[in-house]
Every structure is written in structure tokens, then in C-alpha cells.
């Protein structure tokens, strides 16, 4: 019995895999069989780990020779296991942490709002179910001829449902349902329901008005309790210590957000509610404006200031000029904004396409062109070229451009996105400073001039980061990457594992040399042929071989070592390898068959049963 069961399992698993290869209906059986092996191997790891610990502990307790190595082995094992398994030092994953939102627990069954539209869910003959992203939320009432969705539908759910079946009527129904299954207008983009996390969520601080609007949506006790918890959670204030000199010049909390404040007396920076990522970034860039292209006059002013602060060589001036020219230009910005002003192809909605079909169209294009061509007029271009971030914010720039001519929303977005990607003036000065340093030394004053703003920016960014962390409630502490840069696991990998494995692999070079000296003897004809081939390949794989036979004329180019190398590899080596591979493949097939048919049972031991 002890050997019979494994034999049966072996045979069953093996024949399942073979059958699954030929019979499509059984394909999934083969995949399941393969997955079971992975599960067993994973469980067996626990056996192996336990065995490892037991053996080494025994060596330590018996103080056998080399027991110190066992101590090191066990210490390394436990440290690596701990820091890797518990993701020590790994920050939560940005994409999974829902920064800027607070959660309140609310199960799907307790979510009181359900939205319905007329329609049916088209069946799938292949048996494919509705997408997992809407699991439990979408139901059909065949009798009433309606489809209902519980919760507020998210865009990815809409896409999944539309891709479920490419029928215009179904897709139009889904779109209608999506439009209905949204929070009321004042709460759009702020209130969410994450069914997978069983959580009602709110982005930012919930105002009184928003609180009452949410409460009025339903009267169930679970709903009201969740809304109350959410209101309380989003109105908590986080604060950090922040000395006044860390604040940027012209710091104005109200200009950023009504939820941000600074207590000058206690020197504390406060934020009410969760801080969105976008706000965090705006807090830094608001007071450290984007660097605008350095005009020749501005460049000269900078050079003069540097010269006042210390000596400046010609090489440094040239380096400064070169580095300043590497930044963005107004022409690029104008081109980007004009590009955004081109009519753009956007996908039509399913309802639009269904309307076309019902009107009798036989060719339905899925894309449409929207927008009329808009380019910046001369006034706008001139205004843009005069943009100085030290005197004008980006909002002022947009306002000014609007006053001088038409500007579409896409163009505004493109302009903001372009400027957001550019370095701040402080970062630009830092790069210029490094360019100067590469060309020559700088005095302390000159360094302060070039790096001073950047130091302030870094310092301010650190405080903003601390405030962001304080204002955030961690939801999924273990969602981070175990090998994130800077974590203990990463250190172990970079500075212990990588060098050690590379060292072991590198030892091969030394062993090959000693094997070559000891074992490669021309004892018979075959050995001589082998050695000759080895010489050709060794030379042909380096420049030496190419050099040795480069004098051969073109008509004899086939005798050049690099050509000989290619021929040897392509003909002789390939033929030999094919023969060995064919033999091995047949051996594998035969051995596998013997194992499956239980003809060969020696791997289970040589016992009698």
C-alpha cells in the first residue's frame, strides 16, 4: 500500500498530462495537475527548512567541527526569512494604499443603494462568467427584465463589462447603468465604494454639507454608522513639528488648501483629513516654481552674481552656458500646447454607435474626431514667452492666455502637464552648480548661490512628506515590495547574495584553467581533433583569431578563424548536439513511460511491496 498509492498518483497525473495535450476538453486538467506539483513543492519547502534548522541546531549543541558555520547559517536563514516574509521596512504600495482616502467598513450586503436599468445579461456559450471585478454586485432579474448593480460602479468595472460581450446593445445598457450607478453630483470624485475591500471611502476632508448629503442617501443603521465613522475619520487633524525657517518664502497655507494650516506659536504644521498625492506634490512645487528657460540676459546676470561671489573660469562659464541650453524651450512648450489643440480621435460611446446602427448604418467606425483645431495666436505666444515663474504662477499664466485668445481644456491640461514635468528653478540651479563644479572649483558663497534654494526645497519636501505620512492611515501595511530599495532584504540581496553567487560562478574560470592543464591530453586521434577544434574556437571567439588570419585573401576567407568557428559551430557542433539531444529525448520518453506504467519503481526504494 505504501508504494501503491504513489504509483497510482504518478500514473494518473502523468496520463492526465498526456491526454490533456491531445484532447482540448481536458486541457484544464493538465494545468491543474501541474499546479498541484507546485503546491506540493511549496509545502515541501517547510520540510526542508525544518530539516535545515534541526540539523544545524544539532551540530551547534553537539559542538561538532565547524559548528560556528552552523550558527552563521541559522542566523542568516532566520534574518532573511523574517525581513522578507514580514517586508520589514517596505512602504505600502502606492497603487494599493488608496492614498488620500479614508475607509469605513461596510459590507456589500449593507450597501443600501442599488441601481437598475432595463436589459438582460447576454449568455456566453463558452461558459465564461461575468468579470470578477463585478462579482456579487451585478445581478439580473429575468422576470422584470432588468439588470441591477449594487454599489457605485468604477471605470475599470465598466470596461470589464463592456469587454464581456461585444454587442452594442449590451454595451449601451452597461453605459447607462454606469451613469446611473454613481454618487450624487456633489460627491462625484470624492465618495467611492470599494466592494473588494468592503469599504466606503471618501477622498479628502468631508464637509458638513457632504456629510448630510451622504446620510440622506439611505437610512439603514449600517449605512449611517459607516457615514459617521467616515466623517470622523476624514476630519481628524494630523500635525508635525515644523520650524519657521523650514517654511518656504511667501508660504501661504490658504493658497494651497483650506485644510492646511501653520501654528506660528507652537511651530506646528497641520492638515485636516487625508492628504491626496496630488496635493502633496503641489505643496512642494507651489513655492518652488518651475524653471523657465534662461535667457542670455538672465544667464549673464547669474554669471555676474557668481563672479561677485568668487572666481569663475572661462571653462566654467562655457559649462554653465551648455548646461543652461539643455533645458526646455518655449518653442517646445508652444508646440506641445498646439499639438493638444489638434482635433483628437476619441472612442465613441456604445450608445452613439448603437444609434448609428439603428439608423441603418452598415459601417460603424469606433472612433470619432472631436474638437476644432486651435493654435496659440501671436499674442498668446508672446505672452507665453514672457512667462517668468518667479513673478507669475501657472494659474496666472493660464488666465492670461485665456484673456488673449481661445484656449481649450486639453491645451490647458497639456500646458500644466508639460510644466509639471520640468525641474523647479532650484533643481535647475543645482544642475547648473554641478556643471560648474565639473569644470572647476566653487567658493562657499558660490555654492550657496547655486545650491541654497535646492537645500530649502529638499528640507521643505521632507516636512511635507512627514505631514503626508502623519495624515495617512495605513490600510495595507504589507502591500509593499519586499525588495524595495533600502529595505533590509534589499541590503542582504545587494551586498551579500549578489557578490557571493557571482563569486561562486566566477570560480569556474579558474577551474576550467586547471582542468585544461591537467586533463586535455592528445592521447589519441580523437583527442587531437578535439584539441585542434578547441584551439580554433578559443581563438575565433576573440580578436586574436581575427588578427591572426586577417591576411588571408577574400578567395580564402573561408579559412579565416572566425569563419571556421562559425562553420564548426553550425555544422559539427549542431550535428553532435542534435544526436545527443535526440538520444536524451528518447531516453526521457522511455524512462517516463516506465515510471508511468510502474515498470520502474526503483525511485520509490527497493522494498518488497
Amino acid at each position, binding site marked *: 500500500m505504501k508504494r501503491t498509492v504513489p504509483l497510482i498518483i504518478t500514473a494518473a497525473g502523468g496520463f492526465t498530462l498526456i491526454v490533456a495535450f491531445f484532447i482540448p476538453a481536458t486541457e484544464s486538467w493538465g*494545468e491543474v495537475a501541474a499546479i498541484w506539483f*507546485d503546491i506540493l513543492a511549496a509545502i515541501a519547502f517547510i520540510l526542508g527548512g525544518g530539516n535545515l534548522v534541526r540539523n544545524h541546531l544539532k551540530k551547534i549543541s553537539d559542538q561538532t567541527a565547524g559548528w560556528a558555520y552552523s550558527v552563521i547559517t541559522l542566523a542568516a536563514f532566520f534574518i532573511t526569512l523574517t525581513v522578507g516574509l514580514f517586508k520589514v521596512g517596505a512602504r505600502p504600495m502606492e497603487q494599493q494604499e488608496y492614498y488620500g482616502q479614508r475607509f469605513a467598513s461596510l459590507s456589500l450586503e449593507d450597501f443600501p443603494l442599488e441601481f437598475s436599468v432595463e436589459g438582460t445579461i447576454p449568455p456566453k456559450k463558452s461558459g465564461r462568467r461575468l468579470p470578477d471585478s463585478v462579482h456579487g454586485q451585478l445581478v439580473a432579474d429575468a422576470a422584470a427584465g432588468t439588470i441591477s448593480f449594487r454599489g457605485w460602479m468604477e471605470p475599470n468595472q465598466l*470596461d*470589464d463589462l463592456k469587454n464581456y460581450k461585444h454587442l452594442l446593445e449590451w454595451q449601451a445598457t452597461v453605459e447607462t447603468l454606469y451613469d446611473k450607478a454613481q454618487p450624487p453630483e456633489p460627491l462625484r470624485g470624492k465618495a467611492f465604494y470599494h466592494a473588494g475591500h468592503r469599504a466606503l471611502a471618501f477622498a479628502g476632508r468631508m464637509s458638513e454639507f457632504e456629510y448630510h448629503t451622504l446620510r440622506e442617501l439611505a437610512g439603514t443603521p449600517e449605512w449611517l454608522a459607516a457615514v459617521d465613522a467616515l466623517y470622523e475619520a476624514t476630519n481628524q487633524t494630523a500635525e508635525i513639528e515644523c520650524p519657521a525657517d523650514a517654511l518656504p518664502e511667501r508660504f501661504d497655507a490658504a493658497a494651497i488648501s483650506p485644510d492646511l494650516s501653520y501654528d506660528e506659536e507652537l511651530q506646528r504644521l497641520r492638515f485636516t483629513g487625508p492628504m491626496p498625492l496630488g496635493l502633496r506634490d503641489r505643496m512642494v512645487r507651489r513655492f518652488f516654481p518651475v524653471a523657465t528657460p534662461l535667457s542670455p540676459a538672465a544667464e549673464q546676470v547669474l554669471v555676474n552674481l557668481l563672479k561677485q561671489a568668487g572666481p569663475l573660469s572661462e571653462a566654467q562659464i562655457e559649462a554653465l552656458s551648455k548646461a543652461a541650453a539643455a533645458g526646455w524651450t518655449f518653442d517646445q512648450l508652444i508646440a506641445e500646447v498646439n499639438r493638444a489643440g489638434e482635433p483628437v480621435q476619441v472612442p465613441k460611446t456604445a450608445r452613439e454607435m448603437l444609434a448609428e446602427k439603428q439608423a441603418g448604418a452598415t459601417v460603424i467606425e469606433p472612433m470619432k474626431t472631436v474638437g476644432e483645431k486651435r493654435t496659440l495666436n501671436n499674442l498668446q505666444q508672446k505672452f507665453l514667452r514672457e512667462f517668468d515663474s518667479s513673478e507669475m504662477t501657472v494659474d496666472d499664466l493660464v488666465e492670461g492666455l485665456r484673456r488673449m485668445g481661445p484656449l481649450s481644456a486639453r491645451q490647458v491640461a497639456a500646458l500644466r502637464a508639460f510644466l509639471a514635468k520640468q525641474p523647479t528653478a532650484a533643481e535647475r540651479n543645482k544642475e547648473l552648480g554641478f556643471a560648474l563644479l565639473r569644470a572647476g572649483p566653487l567658493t562657499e558663497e558660490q555654492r550657496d548661490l547655486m545650491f541654497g534654494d535646492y537645500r530649502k526645497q529638499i528640507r521643505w519636501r521632507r516636512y511635507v512628506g512627514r505631514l503626508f505620512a502623519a495624515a495617512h492611515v495605513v490600510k495595507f501595511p504589507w502591500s509593499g515590495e519586499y525588495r524595495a530599495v533600502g529595505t533590509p532584504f534589499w541590503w542582504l540581496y545587494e551586498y551579500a547574495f549578489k557578490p557571493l553567487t557571482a563569486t561562486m560562478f*566566477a570560480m569556474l*574560470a*579558474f577551474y576550467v*584553467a586547471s582542468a585544461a592543464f591537467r586533463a586535455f591530453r592528445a592521447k589519441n586521434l580523437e583527442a587531437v581533433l578535439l584539441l585542434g577544434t578547441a584551439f580554433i574556437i578559443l581563438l575565433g571567439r576573440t*580578436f586574436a583569431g581575427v588578427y591572426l588570419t586577417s591576411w588571408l585573401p577574400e578567395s580564402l576567407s573561408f579559412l579565416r578563424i572566425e569563419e571556421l568557428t562559425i562553420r564548426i559551430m553550425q555544422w559539427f557542433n549542431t550535428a553532435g548536439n542534435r544526436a545527443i*539531444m535526440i538520444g536524451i529525448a528518447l531516453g526521457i520518453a522511455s524512462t517516463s513511460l516506465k515510471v508511468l506504467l510502474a515498470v520502474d519503481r526503483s525511485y520509490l526504494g527497493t522494498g518488497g511491496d
Partner: protein
Amino acid sequence: MLEYVARLDRRWIFLMMLLAVAIPILFQLRFPETPTPLAKAVFDAVENLPPGSKVLLAFDYDPASEGELGPMATAFVLHCAKKGHKMYFIALWPVGPQMIDDQIRKVIKTDFPNLVYGEDYVNLGFKPGNEGVIKVIVTDLRQLYTTDDKGVNIDKIPMMQGIRSVQDFDLVINVSAGYPGTKEWVQYAATPYGIPVVGGCTGVQAPLLYPYIPDQLPGLLGAIKGAAEYEKLVVDRYDLADVGRYLEGLRRMGPQLVAHMLMIFLIIAGNVIYFAQRRQERYRP
């Protein structure tokens, strides 16, 4: 004397090898490199794709083989970035994702900061299962890869739109140190589905992959020599001959040449000793 040399302590040989590798590195010996047809075929496979093509880069190697395969991986990423291809990274080895992160840091974040994660390149990470992974993703990639390496749902990644399986890619580039590797990609992707696959592998593996050239594997980079040839093609094409970090393969060919010369010398020396000993024994009374 003959006896002494015949029984030479192998540590002297190790020392010779150490010097053979160290001196070229320290003195920065570099030699010209002439690309072979196989390297050119790999280069053409990437170069001839129209910009914006979808390329799957499977990095199936570990730090131990980084010496041989790191430079070619760098050259592949550089070439794809220069051509403007969309890069999709995966790994079938557990430490493959670290190799991918290294290359992203070394190439993309350094010289292509304008490339946006999720739009121009994405790291789908490691999946266990060896060739089983290939067998599944050639028909249904989303069955195994539901998120990227950072846990983002792939439906939310713009460049994953329309990608349902490996057959949706224009090219698969595999850098392989063993099993699973290029052989498995050829067996389970290139052969049954005609998916174009090119690859780079360690020197020891290269002879095993020659039978697949050129039908299933149009081109192959073998070891550091192949990496150096491919690097030469890329840096010449894109005028990057003065960027040191893209010349690592060429740099490592210096020690390779000296080491090969040493090997030849050792083989010859060993045979001279062998024949001398045989003659001695024949004439001994």
C-alpha cells in the same frame, strides 16, 4: 623539473588566471569587435521593427550570470528604448525581477527619463512554474498576470490594453542563463505559435541552441562575445561610443582574449609535459 611542473599546484594556475583577467581590466585593454551574422540577425530583428512595436523582454538570469548576460540585457533595453518600442518585462527566475529593476535603473531612468511607466515600459514581474508559465501565457497572458510587479491591476495599465497573450507581441527577447530559458521559449512559444524569438545565453548553453537557428531562433547572442558584438552594433548605430556604461561587453572582451590565450598556453604546456614524460618512460632502463 619536469615532475615539478607536471604536479604544479593548481593555485599557481589560479594565480595566472587572476592576472590574465585583472591586467586587461586594470589597463583597460580593448580590442576591435566585428559582429558576426548571428549578432546582426538579432540586431536586425529589433531594428527592423517599426517604432512603437510591442517587445516582450524575458530576463531569465541571476546575479551569478550577470557577468555574461548583464551587458547584453543592457544593450537590449537601450536598443528598444532608442527605437521607441514598448517594453514589457517579465521573468521566469525568482531573482529575475531584480535584474529587470537593475536595467530599468541603469538605462531607462538614467537616459530616458521621459519614458513613462505604464505607457512606454512595464514590469510584469516573476511567476513560478518554469515552462508552465510560457505554456499558459502564449494563449492567455491574463490568466497568470493579473497585476504588474508593483501590484497594479493590468487593466489600469494603458500599454496592456489589447494584450491578451504573447502572440500579441511583435518580438520576444529572452536573456537566459539556464532553465527555464531560451530553449523553453523556442519549444513552447516560437515553434508552436510562430512567435518571433531572439535571445542571448551563456556560452555553455549556446551550442545547445544552434540547432534552432535560423528557423525557430533567427539570431542568438552567445556569452560575452555575443554581447560585445551586439553592443558594437547598437552603439555604432546610435552614436554612443563615448558612453561607458554601454560598452561593458566590449570592456570584458579584453580579459576574455588574454584568458583564452592562457588556456591555449596551458593546454600546450600540459601536452608538452605529457609527451616529455612519455618519452622519458619509454627510454627509462
